[in-house]
């Protein structure tokens, strides 16, 4: 048995450097001759640029250069791309307006990029920016998701009539209509999925360096996927050919999706460092993060469920309007379409589903993936609708779920919405969660709360999500511009220690620990002799990065496959050294042994022989260093039930979460401590959405929640201590038996919280965020 292998809660390797202040974030990196960049941004939601005069700015003290959109265009730098195609109901691809990195004649949201000022100091760059004279022709703005496609709204992009990006119908419309026509009962719900600012702790930053000798650009950037950045910046933006572009995502202080995308700032910084032949550094401040990071969610939807007399779901119909913001961010089109509608079956056997998604442009920041990306929107809608259905059918919310669950012997289960679920036991998770939450004891607690003047409620959320993104062929068919395999290299050094190169990127997830556990388990090399390397295209062979809870389920398997190759090769080397037949060599716990004998050789010695091949198998390549790619056969489908219990103070509308229980199926857990941390963080993210976070623009497109004084983030005292447990199943498609856990909490929590509030107040629905005032008003109505 190895120490610190799979299943052990090893303390995180990376924490030492973070805790003693030795993390190395993009803004920590300073290079000789560095200049500082500041972006002049649009103060208007929607305006034409009649003229820009940069002369005073260019002459301002310390200013090195000022560039506008014309300069980028003159150098043939491409506009920012969206990598996934969605086909609209007219058979045409989604409308894709040009997304210039620096505005060309028009700005479309507050925070849109107008010019870059590069100076010796940041203060001088800001002084310079104040001297740029921009003559704006202010236009009316479109900011409401629900109204953006209306005829009376102003047009943002010529190529997108009625501000429509796409109208994407999906599913069996006639079948659903017929089922609705003959149903015993139809439950209906209109809801809003509130817009969120993703808010990683570290703001985005980039540092571009150009080497005039090698003609190579090195771009340090806050990214979740350095190779994707390199690919997009090379192939679509002509920044530099891939072999002349090095992208480094050093330590990154949280991403939650917002650092997947290729943003204007990093493209412009990467380009400008060559123009000025000096390193250019840009670090966003918190206001810029609010204004110009991609936001998340922002749907308005109507959902209907048709049922028979027993509350069995017969068909579901969902009409969704999704806000994509002013331009298409890198993966934006995929979020309210494939990542959303394909999850609408949830944990249920609903045989017929029809969905229509209208995606609209507005004068707001681009909207893209944010922790869960589409799946929280689907889960919130479905799990709220199921509670409304339970109410309409006079069934307990647990009972209606039970009646409709996909039974555990039905896996793999083909849903009517493309996805084929790998494994699951939804009843087991529900049962365990109900015990953990003491569901039975709830009525007594509710009565006791009334005596204290409080209203207590309990809410369930049984979710399923698709992660391990993703099988390349599947996403290719859907219109993705990339493959979503993952790559790994496992390299022994001659002295026996190991470097593991992964194409995933850790920005808080603890890969350096989890992946080392995988390798110590498989190769028997002591945990402390394993170093996980990621985040630098010059060090790591290749990779697609970290999002969609894919790092372990896809990247981990690539590592395991590289380890297998090492074992295969090691057997040859050991057989030669031990003078045995290759077929007689067995490998376990780091030792190659000749079966049935005590002749053995440690893998470290094998590695040494491979690099010092004085006596070595004929024809075998020296070296002990293997590469592997892994392309999954299917997504993985984590699932579970979360139960939230709240107390509502109806005098003030304050909601207190008094108990929160989560039972998840993540397959096998490599490091239970890290998994639990992900679950906790995810739940807090979801509680934030449910109770606190609401990103709001006014009718002119001003972001009125642009600081933490107005945008409420969840804090430790907003949540109780969580009760977390697991009901694992074994996913047959994943060689490691793992599913992914990074987004589950953010997906499961919002409906659990809202279902608890509606239960407490005896109301049908309340929109998120359920702020004290909204809850107070709902309680007035309910009383």
């Amino acid at each position, binding site marked *: 048995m190895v120490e610190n292998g799979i299943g052990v809660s090893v303390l995180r390797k990376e924490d030492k450097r973070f805790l003693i202040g030795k993390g190395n974030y993009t803004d920590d990196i300073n290079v000789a001759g560095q200049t500082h960049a500041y972006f002049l941004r649009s103060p208007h939601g929607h305006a034409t640029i009649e003229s820009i005069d940069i002369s005073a700015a260019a002459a301002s003290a310390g200013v090195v250069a000022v560039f506008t959109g014309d300069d980028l265009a003159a150098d043939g730098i491409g506009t920012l791309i969206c990598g996934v195609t969605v086909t609209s109901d007219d058979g045409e691809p989604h409308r894709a307006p040009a997304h210039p990195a620096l505005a060309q004649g028009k700005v479309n949201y507050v925070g849109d990029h107008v010019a870059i000022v590069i100076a010796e100091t940041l*203060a001088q760059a*800001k002084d310079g920016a104040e001297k740029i004279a921009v003559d704006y022709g202010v236009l009316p703005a479109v900011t409401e998701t629900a109204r953006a496609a209306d005829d009376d709204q102003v047009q943002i992009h010529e190529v997108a009539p009625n501000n429509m990006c796409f109208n994407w119908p999906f599913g069996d419309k006639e079948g659903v209509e017929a089922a609705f026509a003959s149903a015993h009962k139809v439950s209906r719900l209109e809801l809003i999925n509130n817009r969120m600012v993703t808010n990683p702790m570290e703001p985005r930053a980039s540092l571009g360096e150009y080497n005039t000798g090698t003609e190579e650009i090195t771009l340090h950037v806050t990214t979740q996927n350095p190779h994707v950045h390199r690919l997009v910046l090379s192939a679509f933006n002509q920044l530099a050919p891939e072999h002349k572009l090095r992208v480094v995502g050093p330590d990154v202080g949280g991403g939650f999706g917002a650092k997947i995308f290729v943003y204007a700032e990093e493209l412009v910084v990467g380009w400008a460092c060559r123009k000025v032949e000096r390193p250019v550094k840009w670090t966003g401040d918190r*206001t810029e993060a609010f204004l110009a990071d991609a936001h998340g969610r922002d749907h308005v939807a109507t959902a209907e469920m048709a049922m028979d007399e027993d509350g069995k779901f017969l068909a579901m119909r969902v009409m969704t309007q999704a806000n994509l913001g002013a331009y298409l961010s890198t993966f934006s089109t995929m979020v309210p379409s494939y990542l959303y509608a394909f999850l609408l079956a949830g944990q249920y056997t609903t045989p017929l589903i029809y969905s229509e998604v209208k995606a609209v442009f507005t004068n707001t920041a681009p909207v893209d993936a944010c922790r869960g990306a589409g799946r929280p929107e689907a889960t919130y809608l479905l799990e709220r609708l199921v509670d409304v259905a339970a109410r309409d059918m006079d069934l307990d919310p647990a009972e209606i779920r039970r009646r409709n669950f996909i039974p555990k012997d039905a896996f793999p289960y083909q849903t009517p919405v493309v996805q084929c679920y790998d494994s699951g036991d939804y009843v087991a998770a529900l049962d365990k969660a109900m015990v953990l939450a003491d569901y039975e004891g709830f009525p007594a607690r509710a009565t006791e709360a009334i005596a204290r003047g409080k209203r207590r409620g309990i809410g369930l959320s049984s979710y399923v999500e698709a992660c391990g993104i993703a099988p390349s062929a599947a996403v290719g068919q859907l219109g993705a511009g990339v493959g979503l395999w993952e790559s790994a290299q496992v390299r022994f050094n001659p002295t026996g220690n190991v470097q593991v190169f992964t194409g995933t990127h850790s920005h808080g997830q603890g890969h350096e620990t989890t992946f080392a556990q995988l390798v110590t388990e498989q190769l028997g090399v002591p945990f402390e002799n394993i170093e996980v390397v990621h985040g630098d295209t010059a060090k790591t062979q290749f990779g697609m990065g970290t999002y969609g809870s894919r790092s372990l389920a896809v990247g981990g398997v690539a590592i395991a496959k590289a380890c297998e190759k090492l074992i295969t090769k090691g057997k040859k080397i050991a057989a030669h050294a031990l003078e045995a037949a290759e077929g007689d060599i067995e490998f376990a716990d780091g030792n190659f042994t000749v079966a049935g004998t005590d002749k053995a050789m440690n893998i470290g010695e094998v590695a040494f022989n491979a690099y010092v091949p004085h006596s070595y198998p004929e024809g075998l390549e020296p070296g002990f260093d293997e590469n592997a790619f892994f392309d999954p056969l299917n997504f993985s489908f984590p699932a579970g039930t979360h139960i939230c219990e709240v107390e509502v103070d109806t*005098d*003030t509308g304050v909601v207190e979460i008094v108990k929160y229980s989560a039972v998840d199926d993540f397959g096998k857990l490599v490091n239970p401590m890290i998994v639990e941390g992900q679950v906790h963080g995810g739940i807090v993210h979801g509680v934030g959405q449910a*109770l*606190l976070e609401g990103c*709001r623009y006014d009718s002119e497109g001003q972001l*009125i*929640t642009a600081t*933490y*004084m*107005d*945008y*409420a*983030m969840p804090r430790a005292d907003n949540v109780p201590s969580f009760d977390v447990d697991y009901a694992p199943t074994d996913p047959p498609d994943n060689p490691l038996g793992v599913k992914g856990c990074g987004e589950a909490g953010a997906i499961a929590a919002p409906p659990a919280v809202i279902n608890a509030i509606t239960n407490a107040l005896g109301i049908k629905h309340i929109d998120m965020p359920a*702020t*004290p*005032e909204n809850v*107070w*008003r709902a309680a007035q109505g309910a009383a």
Partner: protein
Amino acid sequence: MYDFLYHKVNSVDDAVAAMGNADDGKFVAGGQTMLPTMKHRLASPSDVIDLGGVSDLVGIANEGDALVIGAMTTHAAVAASAEVQSAIPALAKLAGNIGDPAVRNRGTLGGSIANNDPAADYPAAVIALGATVKTNKREITGDDFFTGMFETALEEDELITAVSFPIPMTAAYIKFENPASRYAIVGVFIAKTVDGNRVAITGATPCAYRGMKFEKVLNEDFSSNACDAVEVSVDRMNSDIHASAEYRAHLVKVMVKRAVDACG
């Protein structure tokens, strides 16, 4: 931030003199309000006069019938003071709940009341306790000090030196926090004194005010039920994305009742 002249002074006189010589000077205390404004380039004083070295402005003294707290005393110091905790525990609690530890370790009593943010906590205490604001020039009663949103009776070159808080029989502060900023959406300070009850309300309106109608009913019957008789007018209430005027008016009464109950 724009460039400015920085002055480090050791006495009230030097501070006032430096201010007199400045074009557009500003005192800086804890900097918790002023520095963010300067960093965002929303304020550009020509001179910044740092009161951090003026030791006369720091300290807490019990003068028998009043606590005198120096203007530069931090929120953390007030919260941790045994003197305050025993004489006016509600004041220690109020200070201990301002912002977060970093804010409390820098932010000061003088800075808070000079700034007079409509959602700040201290103004409610100053008014309800019938405190006196001492400056380099004069003494100003709490009732006269706060004149409007972010406005006070202070003159340009006037420096708060201390605040004298009469010690009440009992007092309580109840704050309904803004979920984002944790400032007061509505904060109610009630002090029971030998001369009657004083009620002050912050957060609800552009400037903290005395709840005279509540005082009247409470002087007759000091009970939360008695407060039901008071109508809180919606007209003067602030309204923003966190709380409408109607909700704030409702909260005022709820918080007054809770403060009454907390007075015991």
